[in-house]
């Protein structure tokens, strides 16, 4: 192979486009698939993050407002009436569920106090579980992307480097100018993987702790509310 042939074979490789789009476009189709998948995952992760962020701030603010109203000495009946139609946050849903059970027990003919306490606690437990499930929904996606994203990106990189080495072997020229574009394009896949995975991991940890906090808050409220109701039951019991 004379030098002129080497130069000619190296020419299309060395004159490669090194912009972001160029890096993507020259990649092998498997690497392209990996990149696209990671891009979609990144978009989805950020959508979840934004959604959860708004959800948590909203529910935190609503809980604060509700607790203020609850402990302000306002009649629980009135509070129930104003919230029963559309409980907007988990604490309201908890309150409404407990009150509904309470009212049902009193409005019915058979005034059964025997199992009321137990029934209310059951209802509240179920409601807490359902609310936490609602808060936790889609957080698993973040966990998955956070842990698997780098591996998927690495897979794309390894594949890209593999193919670029194959093409180096075919061109029989090992100058860095021939090697570099293929490796740069392969590393782009890992870069995208990390871009998707890093925020996913960070926000997953943050949201998990947020969910725990809200769950504790709900448990606390449920205990307090059940104490209040228990006192009422004891007062009204014959």
């Amino acid at each position, binding site marked *: 192979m004379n030098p002129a042939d080497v130069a000619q074979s190296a020419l299309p490789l060395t004159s490669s486009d*090194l*912009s*972001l*789009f160029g890096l993507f476009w020259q990649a092998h189709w498997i690497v392209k698939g990996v990149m696209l998948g990671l*891009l979609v995952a*990144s*978009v*989805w*992760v*950020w*959508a*979840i*993050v*934004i*959604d*959860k962020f*708004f959800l948590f701030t909203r529910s935190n603010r609503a809980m604060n407002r509700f607790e203020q109203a609850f402990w302000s000495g306002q009649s629980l009946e009135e509070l129930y009436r104003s919230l029963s139609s559309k409980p907007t946050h988990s604490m309201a849903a908890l309150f409404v569920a407990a009150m509904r059970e309470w009212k049902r027990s009193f409005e019915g003919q058979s005034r059964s106090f025997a199992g009321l306490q137990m029934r209310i606690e059951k209802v509240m437990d179920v409601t807490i579980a359902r609310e936490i499930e609602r808060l936790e929904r889609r957080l698993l996606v973040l966990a998955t992307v956070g842990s698997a994203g780098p591996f998927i990106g690495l897979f794309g990189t390894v594949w890209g480097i593999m193919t670029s080495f194959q093409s180096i072997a075919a061109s029989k020229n090992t100058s860095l100018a021939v090697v570099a574009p293929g490796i740069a394009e392969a590393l782009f896949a890992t870069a995208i993987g990390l871009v998707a995975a890093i925020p996913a991991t960070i926000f997953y940890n943050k949201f998990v702790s947020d969910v725990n906090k809200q769950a504790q808050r709900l448990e606390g409220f449920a205990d307090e509310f059940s104490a209040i109701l228990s006192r009422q039951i004891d007062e009204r019991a014959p």
Partner: protein
Amino acid sequence: MKSGLTISAVGHALFFAWGIISFSVTPLKTEPTESVPVDIISATDFSAMTAGMKTAPKSENQKPLVEKIAPKNEVKDPTPKVAEKKPEIDASAEAPPPPSIPEPKPKPKVAEAKPPEPKAEKLEKKPDPIAEAIKQEKPDDKPKPEKDEAAQKQAQEVPTPQKRPPRPEAKPEPKFDASKVAALLDKRAPQRQAATGDVLNNKPALGTATGTAAALSQSELDALRAQIQQCWNPPAGAADAKDLIVVVKLELNQDGTLTGQPSLANRSSHPFFQVAAESALRAIRRCQPYKLPIAKYETWRSIEVGFDPKELFRG
């Protein structure tokens, strides 16, 4: 969820748009390095390299750097030509006694005839001690004028000693001598071995510091070997004598005598090796001084000589 998805998608789109615009590859700037010229030379070329400096320019005809003209060894020709002796005898017959030389039978004509007839002088040299005496006289002539000058100066000083009694301080007064500037500027160690040769050449050429342009020819090496072999008694009756090769490293003075103790350059487990080595060292000590061309002193200043019993018997 929809709002989050749209915000996320728009954010990514914006990010990549920014990336496509600003993600430009700036090529690494590499400073152009000065290339170092490299010559590939063979081992023969290297050994024949002129003594010179690494920074000196490469000259076409490389002469070894010579700081001192080596004293010529007078070759004692064992077979003087009879035919050329004749005019020399004539010259000696005509010689009148010179007054300057305190010899009972001086031959000034011979001394005078020396410049036009160097050959005759050489040939005549052996039996005649006069020429040597003249020669000895000659180097003595040189310091004389200096002495005279000093004496004259002293004489000038003598008339006025009383005027300036505290004169001793004038002694260390440095006299500027333009001819010694080069010597004063010379930062090299004064004890260094001056490079000697046939012709003075103070212009260094490109080469190695210890390079030797002139290598000992094979015949000269053979001559050295022959000189040593005369004195060598190889250990007789040694079994496996072919393994009994002794290599001795010796360092020589310019007059062919040994500088220090010759040292063994190889080792062997042969039972007779010690005996053979001793005999070789003895031979080397016994045969000095060695007669080697002084002009190539650099090449034989340090030399290794191999003693191979096989060669001795090979004839």
